[in-house]
């Protein structure tokens, strides 16, 4: 039976009693009596609960601070780790630079968002990859402030981002070693198991066949914090190293481990996964830094949400999923993984182990788009992943057009694809093919947009794709784009 052990502001904590589905936020406020960390929503969308975790597991050679939403983490998710809260930043009475900058720039008015803002800025202090002003918005978009209008917050973060002060925290980071994540708490009808090997995972699943899987918890924890459900049996995947990381298989396909976080995926998209430009593009406006630190590729796909953002991009790229169980592994095209609304092809005992993506052909045109009410930290009204290959004569030889928000699952627009395939890739072909979309999807009306809007946007994204890729086949996004499609001035 594991005891919950972690370091809170460098003090060791041991707790044998706390129920494992207690959120870190409630633990901090109610059991540790640290009330600096606030609850603004309990759904990961405001950032008032932001704390920082020191992560040496992802890359032991380069430990990192990660700002996370304490409201969506169950306490075993920090097992063995170091957690810092707003109360832990002052050293010998002196403000941390992130705190001092917020005072100096008048970054707080009512102050309720401030602890979370400071913690996200704290992470920014120690990031070495912040070079562009737009990246600061990306870093901070998970922190809502209703008072300031953000200008002073932006200024404060600008002052400190990437400064890497020579302080205790930097030393802690340098000294960090991978945490012992293993956690097992089990009794009749209840368990929380966080195995740290594939073998132990299969054993746990065999022992508790009813248990639900959890990885980052950014989706699952909402059942507890929003629906007030009891999750009696949970098996956590994040400690299993075999399911994590990005690489290249013997056949040349890219392989993305299911428990790879979206931050790590994003970083890989600027490195080994660079050819997969649509992924990087869709990740630019995906949740917030805090969420991306926890959210995983596997969780995003296994949700089987019709508005999950990775699916359209990955389907367009021709991705496959690898499903594993104690008995072995099988591979499916991603689009066949989604059976119905929030229903996947996973069989009992199976986990999604990895996503495989082929290297796109050199001349292929591809992009991914996302339209939502707010650009940052919002769920798609419509998302699209588009991929077109043409032969030297200019005819479409391969086309994959996948959409989110248009049907009960992420889905390909088969009619549209058929109308494009074999035709010359011209504006006239695109215009002639677009009416087929109306046959592919009957989108619904909800608070994110009407059926009319979804239909119109889906069409326009294909138009935009044509125009955008006319100049560059794999267009990147500019720093602060006005829209998901990059068309400031037409080619």
């Amino acid at each position, binding site marked *: 039976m594991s005891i919950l052990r972690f370091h809170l502001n460098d003090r060791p904590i041991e707790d044998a009693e706390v129920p494992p589905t207690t959120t870190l936020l409630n633990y901090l406020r109610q059991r540790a*009596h640290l*009330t600096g960390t*606030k609850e*603004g*929503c*309990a*759904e990961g*969308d405001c950032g008032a609960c932001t704390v920082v975790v020191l992560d040496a597991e992802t890359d032991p050679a380069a430990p990192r601070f990660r700002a996370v939403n304490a409201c969506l983490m169950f306490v075993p998710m920090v097992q063995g780790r170091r957690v810092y*809260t707003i109360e832990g*930043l002052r050293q010998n009475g002196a*403000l941390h630079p992130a*705190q*001092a900058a917020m*005072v100096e720039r*008048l970054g*707080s*008015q*009512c*102050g*309720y*968002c401030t602890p979370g803002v*400071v913690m996200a800025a704290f992470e920014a202090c120690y990031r070495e990859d912040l070079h562009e*002003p737009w990246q*600061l*918005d990306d870093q901070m*978009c998970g922190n*809502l*402030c*209703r*008072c*300031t*209008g*953000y200008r*002073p917050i*932006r200024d404060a973060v600008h002052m400190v981002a990437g400064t890497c002060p020579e302080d205790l925290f930097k030393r802690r980071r340098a000294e960090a070693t991978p945490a012992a994540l293993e956690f097992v708490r089990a009794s009749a009808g209840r368990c929380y198991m966080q195995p740290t090997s594939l073998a132990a995972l299969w054993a746990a699943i065999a022992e508790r066949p009813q248990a639900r899987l959890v990885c980052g918890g950014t989706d699952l924890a909402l059942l507890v914090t*929003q629906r*007030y459900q009891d999750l009696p049996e949970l098996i956590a995947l994040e400690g299993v190293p075999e399911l994590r990381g990005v690489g290249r298989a013997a056949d040349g396909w890219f392989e993305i481990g299911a428990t790879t976080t979206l931050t790590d995926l994003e970083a890989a998209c600027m490195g080994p996964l660079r050819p997969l430009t649509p992924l990087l593009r869709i990740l630019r406006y995906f949740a917030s830094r805090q969420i991306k630190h926890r959210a995983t590729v596997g969780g995003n796909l296994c949700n089987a949400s019709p508005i999950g953002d990775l699916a359209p991009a990955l389907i367009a790229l021709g991705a496959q999923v690898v499903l594993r169980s104690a008995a072995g592994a099988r591979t499916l095209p991603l689009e066949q993984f989604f059976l119905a609304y929030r229903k996947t092809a996973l069989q009992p005992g199976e986990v999604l182990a990895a996503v495989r993506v082929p290297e796109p052909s050199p001349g292929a045109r591809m992009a991914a788009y996302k*339209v*939502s*009410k*707010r*650009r*940052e930290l*919002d769920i798609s009204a419509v998302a699209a992943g588009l991929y077109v290959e043409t032969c030297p004569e200019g005819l479409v030889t391969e086309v994959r057009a996948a959409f989110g928000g248009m049907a009960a699952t992420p889905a390909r627009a088969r009619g549209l694809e058929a109308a494009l395939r074999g035709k010359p890739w011209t504006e006239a072909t695109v215009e002639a093919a677009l009416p087929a979309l109306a046959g592919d999807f009957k989108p619904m009306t*909800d*608070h994110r*947009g*009407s059926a009319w*809007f979804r239909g*119109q*946007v889906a069409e*326009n*994204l294909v138009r*935009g794709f044509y125009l955008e890729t006319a100049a560059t086949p794999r267009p990147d996004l500019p720093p602060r*784009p*006005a*829209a998901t*499609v990059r*068309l400031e*001035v037409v080619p």
Partner: protein
Amino acid sequence: MTEVSQSPLGRPAVHESALGHVTGSARYVDDLPEPAGMLHGLPVGSPVARGRLVARRAERALAVPGVHAVLFAADVPGHNRIGPIVHDEPLLAEDEVFAEGQVVALVLGDSVAACRAGAKALELEFEELPAILTIAEALEAGSLLAPPHEMRRGDVAGAMARAAVIVEGELHTGGQDHFYLETQATLAFPGENDTLHLESSTQHPTEVQVACAEVLGCARNQIVVSVPRMGGAFGGKESQASQFAALAALGARHTGRPVKVWLSRDLDMTMTGKRHPFWSRYRAGLDARGRLLALEVELVADGGWSVDLSPAILDRGMFHLDNGYFVPNLRFVGKAVRTNKASNTAFRGFGGPQGMAVIEEVLSRAAERLGLDPAEIRRRNYYGDCPDEHGPENMVDVPVPDGEQTSAGASVISLVRARCLTPYYQEVPHCRLPRIHAELLARCDWEARRAEIAAWNARSPWQKRGLGFMPVKFGISFTNTMLNQAGALVLVYADGSVQLNHGGTEMGQGLHTKMVAVCAHELGVTTAQVRCMATATDKVPNTSATAASSGSDLNGMAVQAACAELRERVRPLAAELLGTGPEAVQFAGGAAHGPGGRSVQWSDLAKTAWMRRISLSAAGYYATPNIAYDRTVGRGKPFHYFAYGAAAVEVEISGLTGEHRISRVDILHDVGSSLLPTIDVGQIEGGFIQGVGWLTGEELVWDAKGRLLTHGPSTYKIPAIGDCPAIFNVALLERAEQDSTIHGSKAVGEPPLMLGLGVVSALRQAIAAFGPGEVELGIPCTPEAILRAVVKQRAAAVTRAADAAE
């Protein structure tokens, strides 16, 4: 050492709680150490928009472990009805429910989780009744909350007949959730002899006190309400904190234990009222140069299920139908309707933004018809003399009776001729908009950028830019005259340290910071010597809400009065110690100074004063002079003065997706002689972005049964950091001292919110670049609304091209 150089006024200042904010040590109600035996109170709301409550059984809920009690209306010992203007809101539902989320029961338990389990086990049965869910349905059913309010002047029909352009239509503006980061919270401690102390997150501690006293059936002196600070309020904790505080009080009285009522985000958004959605029908006549000749508006506010502050909000909406423009002939009719939704309430601007949105729509449409620059048409209509544009010919066409006078005793006809009389017959002296307009246009390079944008748009078929303009004139004072009063209590201890109490509450706006500065200035001490205390009803009684942007205007005067009295009390003593005459003593920087560089420390002065038995505490009081309004005739002087500002906003939109981005904003705002410029700039920036949120991404959606679908930040999108423009220039108008206000300053809380309407002006410009004809843009301007408008514009362009080809 001169007094001026030592005063904190007008100097850069940081928020007085900034250190607490950034270290997490600033405490909000939910952060206070929980007293032993404390229970949590969870309000349980109606699941239906309207229905008869046919059964309420608590047995199963009471059987849930950790649940202590379940309270219904019958458990209220005093009055069950509360409400700020009319007592029409049952604290706990009686036989009928009128909105989703209307509180039916209070579950008291050891933990929030126990309360939630208890709430689930509660057996409530409703018989659903037909509900009124829209303004149109309410108007049809004649469901009004108060008698209509009317303003009129001149001859509308005659002026319309002469107009070169008639603009008519309807406008909807949506609601807006306050989304203060800290949700509603109150902690109630029962004391001896049935007394009660509450720590409450409220803008209006007195109203909480009154509600608790009435609900418990006791005198007000039995209740003390204290406000540590709020994590934002924006009007949402003006009247609506009372209900949840009263529930905590009820629970504490019932169980004899401390009770905390705190709302989760979803409960808060479901149960509390929002900015009023408004609908209006308007008809305007303008001359060929775009000057308003007549305006007729029917303005209707959706008040939700109870009166709350709706009549006052409607009034302010009507008071701002003119914004900064002279309207010669007019007829405005205002109505507040009752619907089966959460009761809508105060929200920064208090109806003003909704009123202004109407005339801005009129001018935008007229400009599009006349091919005028959006700034220019506005300039032509400002109050005051504009000799180059406004010949006398307009004026004589306003038939007003000879010899008629305003309530302030001025001649109506001469004010009309001078174009400086509002629709409610208050004079607008020295309208600052023409000056602000000229300065802002120069600062933001208006003409050159308009040309650049036009050239850029010509090259960009799918993405367009627009430059919009928005001036604001906003009336300052509570329009209910009685509320314009404030008090302060200043205590000086014998070590010279000062406790400052005043009636205003701190919600982030920097009021305490300003009051500390006013106090320090007046006593000649340093701000470090002054501690601003939690606002409490046992320090300053009978306070008004901290609202209507009036916090520093009213409380500042009261603080000044109290401090001046204290200072004058010790002046003779200081003179004696300095060996000089009283008039030669200067108080500054923590000391009293005499001629020849002699000085005595404030701390020594305080100690000596105590030993000499000079009283070191004083109360101050202030009531705004010379304001009054008669709603029955729609005339008076409701405002002490007007605050002004203007914004130039540049946007870029996508004609494919309807997305937009604000690329640059320039604001020039009039805060009089700023008490603390850094604080004021923060209010302007924050207010502007909040206004932009209301007009763009913040969309409240209900289902067909009146249940709110957007009750959390996952579905309700307030601006995020990326919505803050990359270029955001805010300047304060210089040489702008205001008469008879605290140190010549002006209120700043609300006016900047309306500058956000500049984004609508800019979006319209960008949309218009897609095709000919008037823009039809719905509010809020979501990507969907923008895309609809673009589709219409593009279709018009196609038609025009086809016509041209024929």
